[in-house]
């Protein structure tokens, strides 16, 4: 093999690797877009499940892109009316009982939201699985009957993320993110997300039930079910404001 041939082969390999990497990012982006839309409004029900009890919390949430989100607790009565605002990297909570907005410190982000296995980061989506990670297709596997890409995500340098590694299973035709495994910086599995109950919602079909299963506590989990959702609705940026977080209903 002469030198030119080697170079040629090498460039093809590089090109195909690049192409593959782009594909992986593209797949993750499509799966992410399916669940996000440009702007959305949803009503959700969260069930925190433990061996001897369970607790149901309902909430509404509004989002626009990655940077803007608002969440309002609608039940149970003790917590209803509390709201959470996220603008880029700043987060606030509004507590109507004490009539006060409290700024969230970053150390609160990894905490379970409202006592669930869902972290504040999951709810407020501080980090982006598209922008903050590199993506690589590492195989194909079946999840709940769907043929899925298995994609490995590694955090980009300097990205402010809480995970050391993520594996995603995304269905090949529909881009449903059906399974996700989250690992800490030491490579230890922290939790698994399972998505199921594909239904038609507003303008698309998507999984409507999310289960979060902590790796070290096999007998507990949290289920989040989408009750209703709308995508790509007109939501002004000014909707995501401290003034509005007090007025939400």
């Amino acid at each position, binding site marked *: 093999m002469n030198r030119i041939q080697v170079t040629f082969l090498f460039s093809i390999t590089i090109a195909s690797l690049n192409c593959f990497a782009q594909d992986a990012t593209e797949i993750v982006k499509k799966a992410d877009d399916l669940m996000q839309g440009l702007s959305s*409004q949803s*009503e959700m029900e969260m069930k*925190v499940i*433990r061996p001897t*009890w369970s*607790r*149901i919390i309902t909430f*509404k949430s509004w989002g626009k892109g990655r940077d803007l989100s608002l969440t309002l607790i609608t039940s*149970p*009565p*003790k917590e*209803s*009316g509390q709201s959470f605002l996220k*603008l880029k*990297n*700043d987060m606030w909570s509004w507590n109507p*009982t*004490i*009539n*006060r907005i*409290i*700024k*969230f*410190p*970053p*150390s*609160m982000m*990894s*905490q*379970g939201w*409202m*006592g*669930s296995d869902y972290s504040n980061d999951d709810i407020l989506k501080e980090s982006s699985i598209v922008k903050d990670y590199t993506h690589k297709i590492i195989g194909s596997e079946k999840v709940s009957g769907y043929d899925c890409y298995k994609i490995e995500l590694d955090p980009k340098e300097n990205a402010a993320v809480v995970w050391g590694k993520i594996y995603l299973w995304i269905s090949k035709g529909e881009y449903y993110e059906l399974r996700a495994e989250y690992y800490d910086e030491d490579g230890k599995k922290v939790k698994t997300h399972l998505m199921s109950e594909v239904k038609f919602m507003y303008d698309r079909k998507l999984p409507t039930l999310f289960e979060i299963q902590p790796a070290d506590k096999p007998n507990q989990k949290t289920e989040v079910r989408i009750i*209703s959702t*709308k995508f790509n*609705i*007109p*939501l*002004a*940026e*000014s*909707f*995501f*404001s*401290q*003034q509005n977080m007090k*007025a939400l*209903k």
Partner: protein
Amino acid sequence: MLLSFELFAQETKPRSWELKGNLDDLQMIQFSKIETPWLIDNQINNRIDFSWNPSKWFRTGIGMRNRFVFGESLTQDTTRKGSLTFDPGLVNMTWDTYSARSFILLTELDRAWVSFKSGKAELTIGRQRINWSQTIVWNPNDIFNTYSFYDIDYPERPGSDAVRLQVYPSSTSTIELASGWNSEGKITVAGLGRFNSEGYDFQFLAGLVGDQDYVIGSGWSGNIAGAAFRGEVNYYQPKKHFNDTTGLLLATLGADYTFRNSLMLTFQVYYNQLPANYTPLGLLSIYQAPLSPKMLSFTEWNIFLQGSYPFTPLFDGSLSLMYYPELKGYFIGPTLNYNLKQNIDISLFVQYFNGRFTGTGPLKDRDYYFSSCLSTLRMKWSF
């Protein structure tokens, strides 16, 4: 924006009114030392909050508090009934509905307001909570409301009879003007500006408190290395002696950090310059809200440390510690809370104080040890 509101109206159809509240019973035991006589008290509280929001530009809300208080504190302390029925607001809305020697039924409106909204401006008139706090335990910036951290049963805190204009120039900034009057008709009027910059919320305020002192102040909330970093500073100068050096400084710094295992640590240090003629009233007065935002503690220096930990999402506990250097005194306050059913909580609060009233500064005229232990068991139903 308009369009999006219409969409929501179709989608969620929220009710224009809301009725919320709770009912709780507190069983209290208080003693100085465990072998000394116990004071046994009970209190049944009911809170009802009603709000009505018939249109985009108008809202109104009423908060009612009914309390049935009985027990030995009431029969032994003749001033207690007076302090329970005292309403700090301009309009008396606290009523002794029915009482005899051993009990009192109190009815109180601590919220009664109407609010008008036009775009980014809101005007609220009536009894309302104006909360300008940034820190957790002592809040010098919170000049419209004073409260006692130790008063476990009143998370809502009293309201003030006030007129308040709030303008929101951006998503994360506020300009406020508020004017309130106390039971003696003395005015507190102040302006506040709050904005967000570089991950910090900053606020600045200036005004007149109790028709007596000019105040300037500042507060912030931000973070250092993942921990929340908060602070508040107020400086008072008497209206009458404006050119003297008789001002008072109140300043506090606090930090809180939540570990991965959900343990949350809160630290706060508070400095309250006390007036030259100050004499301490004794530790028992701390359960009541301070009468002036100029004096939020009974010692100059106060150090607070709290650890709280959710053993499960239904069962959590905390331990608060305070140190008052001038008294060589301390406070220990463990609490436990258990969420018995979706809307029922059972809680235990223990509050132990010990201090030596002696030493330096404004506290030099007293010299005695004092200790007090108050234990409260609370059963609370939220609806």
